[in-house]
């Protein structure tokens, strides 16, 4: 009851509310474990903090493994300095678009949490021309409104800060919220696990909520979980740029147009073909997105883990990525899960990525 019957809209609202900038996912890991546990046969946490949710296959052992990866972390900030007056300076974890920050409300994840605002100077007090200059993050500050002594006591340097913007429903059931990157991907994992319970694949499927995708050159959780699991196939689920005015055709995929299937160096042709055939077989709309070199997703690191993994990327169309109003259409999330479940259930027990030629 309850969560077992939640709509995707409800899942998105729930998952985007959970904190966890890169490196601080552990604050919400128990909740992710609980959520995956509703549908998985087994849930584990590895030593990096990745959450592994298993669906046991029906094929003969040893069964090949398919890894589904959606990163748990989100972009945010860490407190870097407390200044006289109790104002806080922050550094960014992952790339928040600094143009979108002045005037925004945030939550400081102190104990107990405190709310704050990215301070702005009202037009009355600005010098001429000031409004034409983008304020770099290092010049922005957080103001809790509380006395300096309270701030110093409660907010140590290193405290996590997140944008504070509850999800907003738009027309066509679209939902705007910070953290759609990549909690909408986590929602795809939840929905896929749910579908696979009814429709067991021959393979073992491990849906992994990965840590630390956003914070640097290496997708840490993807790399380590793939090394540990040694999957045959790895599919990263992440947001893709949804269509927006001012972008060129080919740079984005349509919102409400179903999953985007990425094509490029990170993508194994057989997995791409398998996903595309599955979509066609069930008449599911999809678009093809071109990511010629690195896809900017967990797939980059899954691909080179272990002895090499046949990888693909499934994208959820999302507008205004890395702002507080990332817009996703829930039905695209559902379609990603439907496609994954169909594809995974159709995997032949004996298929291997390594071709033995002689």
């Amino acid at each position: 009851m309850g969560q077992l019957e939640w709509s995707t809209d409800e899942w998105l609202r729930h998952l985007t509310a959970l904190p966890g900038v890169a490196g601080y996912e552990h604050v919400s890991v128990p909740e992710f474990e609980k959520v995956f546990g509703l549908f998985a046969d087994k849930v584990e946490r590895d030593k990096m903090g990745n959450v592994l949710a298993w669906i046991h296959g029906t094929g003969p052992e040893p069964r090949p493994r398919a890894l589904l990866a959606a990163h748990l972390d989100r972009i945010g900030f860490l407190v870097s300095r407390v200044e006289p007056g109790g104002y806080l300076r922050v550094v960014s974890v992952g790339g928040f678009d600094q143009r979108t920050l002045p005037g925004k409300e945030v939550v400081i994840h102190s104990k107990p949490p405190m709310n704050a605002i990215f301070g702005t100077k009202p037009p009355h007090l600005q010098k001429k021309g000031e409004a034409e200059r983008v304020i770099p993050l290092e010049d922005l500050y957080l103001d809790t409104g509380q006395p300096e002594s309270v701030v110093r006591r409660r907010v140590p340097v290193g405290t996590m800060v997140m944008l504070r913007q509850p999800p907003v429903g738009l027309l066509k059931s679209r939902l705007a919220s910070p953290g759609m990157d990549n909690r909408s991907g986590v929602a795809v994992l939840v929905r896929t696990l749910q579908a696979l319970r009814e429709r067991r694949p021959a393979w073992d499927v491990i849906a992994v909520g990965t840590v630390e995708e956003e914070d640097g050159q290496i997708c840490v959780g993807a790399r380590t979980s793939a090394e540990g699991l040694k999957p045959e196939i790895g599919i990263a689920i992440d947001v893709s740029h949804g269509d927006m005015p001012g972008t060129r055709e080919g740079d984005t995929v349509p919102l409400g147009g179903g999953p985007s299937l990425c094509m490029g160096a990170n993508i194994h042709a057989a997995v791409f073909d398998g996903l595309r055939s599955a979509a066609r077989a069930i008449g599911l709309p999809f678009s093809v997105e071109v990511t010629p070199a690195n896809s900017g997703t967990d797939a980059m690191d899954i691909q080179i883990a272990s002895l090499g993994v046949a990888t693909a990327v499934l994208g959820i169309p999302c507008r205004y990525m890395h702002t507080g109003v990332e817009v996703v259409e829930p039905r695209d999330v559902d379609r990603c899960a439907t496609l994954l479940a169909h594809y995974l259930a159709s995997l032949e027990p004996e298929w291997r990525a390594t071709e033995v030629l002689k």
Partner: protein
Amino acid sequence: MQAARAAKRSGAPRFEEHLLEAFSNADGPSGWEAPVRALIVSAVRDNVDSLEVDAMGNLVARIDPSGGRSRRGAPHVMLCAHMDEVGFMVTAVEKDGRLRFRRVGGIDPRILLGQVFRIGQNGARGVVGALPAHLLTNNDMNKVTPIEELFLDIGAASRDEALQAISIGDLVAFDTTYESAGRVRKGKAFDDRVGCAVLASLVQKRPPVPVTAVWTVQEEIGTRGAAAAARRVAPDLAIILEGTASGESPGASPEEQQPRMGGGPTITIQDRSLMADARLIDLLAKTAKRRKIPTQWKRPGVGGTDAGRIALSGAGVPAAVVSVACRYIHAPAAYLDIRDPQRVVELVWHALESLRKEWP
């Protein structure tokens, strides 16, 4: 609570915080003040002797010590706060369903990207999106997008879809909710809903001199409502109640840090619209000293209020401005210290008592 007890002792009315909350959460960009006015009407109608809405939409309430007959010799005081807030108006709907909009009042274009807005009266929400950094050149990342190039996304995929939810001409307000943390209150439009709530609190008691309380329209687009209202009221003097900009920010010089949130009522000496009446300033300062109410001076030379308009109306009206210093006005979320509006209520109330005795 302490402030409230002090108020009880002093005979001044209590600042009604629930009014501030309701007024702040209501939407009323200039020219569309009706929702705010309706709340004020229900808050004050039982306590005032007369209540009118003039042709521009100003709300005018009269209340005097004897319940209708002015006491001989006591000056007729106009107390004034503006109902409107800065916001936006939907100006066009594009084929693909996005909305174009323009500013109503002074708003820094840099606070719009990634923000959520309420549109019209039917609860529609829209977001101002930003092209993701991934798709921009470094050059564009360091450029402020002009408002003319921004749009509101309400989720519509076509003009028809959009027009089912909103209309051209709909007013747009920040989607912000009033909150408390310690002494701090957070909300939108404290400029000037805090003045509106101070004024609504002041008329909960019968004042010591004849008062005409006016909640004006269109202050943010050129103090327009006050022009008509001042002529109608023709007061002997006027006190304008405002939410003004605090100067506080990290690294600013001590002079620029004034006034401060929590520093007590802010008194204006001079701004871009007004030289405040010296006798009134003196009376306010003396009253504050006698009543031990902390006060501070507004930094001269910045901003402007209805007071400028009222001071020049008719044959001239001595005018002063008493404000609550708020951080981050004209932005989605502002702060104030809840002790300040209570102190403004007390200061103005006791100033009215002094006026009864001392005004020439």
